[in-house]
């Protein structure tokens, strides 16, 4: 990994940790919601980052199918892996959030299940990539599968939107305590920055691996 990447990585991680620290300490607990709301400071940014990453996978898939340039395939490889990571994290956070509110670690709440379905769809594509040896076939097939699987992203967003409006006493963004809003925006920025860095690092890894595979 180049020096530039290492330094930028360190900065991104540092900011990310600071953001979380802010989420844990600075923002005052809301009067009728307990400190539990602090989970939101990591949950919402990760949700946004995961869906954005899967959308990058969609763009990369269309890019590869249109131009057959390897850069798109590397981006697809990176965004699938980072997306699944964020998706798994999202599910874990969701169930941790769920326990105090519903008394169970997992329940048929559309938000939880739709995230799990989204993650499983793209996890399947990672498995597909592992089981196909031909680089061109692997790229085209996983691109086609990613385009099909992307449908789960709006489906998840729709479930979250509908369910939040039904259950959550979540205060709309405006009325939220300014400190809480600041903490949330800070965390969103740092998680997004970290996600972009992870995508770049994984992109370079994919490029190196393909060079080794093709022996060029």
């Amino acid at each position: 990994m180049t020096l530039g990447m290492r330094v930028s990585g360190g900065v991104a991680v540092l900011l990310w940790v600071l953001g979380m620290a802010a989420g844990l300490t600075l923002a005052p607990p809301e009067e009728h919601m307990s400190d539990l709301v602090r989970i939101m400071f990591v949950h919402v940014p990760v949700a946004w980052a995961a869906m954005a990453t899967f959308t990058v996978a969609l763009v990369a898939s269309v890019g590869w199918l249109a131009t057959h340039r390897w850069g798109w395939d590397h981006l697809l490889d990176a965004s699938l892996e980072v997306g699944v990571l964020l998706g798994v994290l999202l599910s874990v956070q969701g169930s941790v959030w769920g326990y105090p509110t519903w008394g169970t670690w997992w329940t048929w709440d559309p938000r939880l299940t739709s995230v799990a379905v989204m993650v499983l769809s793209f996890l399947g594509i990672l498995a597909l990539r592992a089981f196909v040896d031909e680089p061109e076939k692997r790229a085209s097939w996983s691109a086609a599968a990613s385009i099909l699987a992307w449908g789960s992203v709006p489906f998840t967003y729709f479930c979250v939107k509908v369910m939040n409006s039904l259950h959550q006493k979540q205060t709309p963004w405006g009325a939220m305590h300014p400190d809480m809003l600041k903490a949330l925006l800070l965390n969103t920025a740092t998680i997004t920055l970290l996600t972009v860095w992870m995508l770049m690092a994984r992109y370079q890894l994919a490029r190196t691996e393909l060079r080794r595979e093709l022996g060029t």
Partner: protein
Amino acid sequence: MMGVVTEPWPFVWSAYGATVVLIGGYLVSLWVRSRSTGGGDEQA
């Protein structure tokens, strides 16, 4: 107080902990994999 459980902090910590563990673990795996494929000092 909402929800079943009164003491929220263990859950806040476990959510943050899970975040650090998963993302941290992935960062380490990226680091290890980039070193093992000889990408260590290759100027990209």
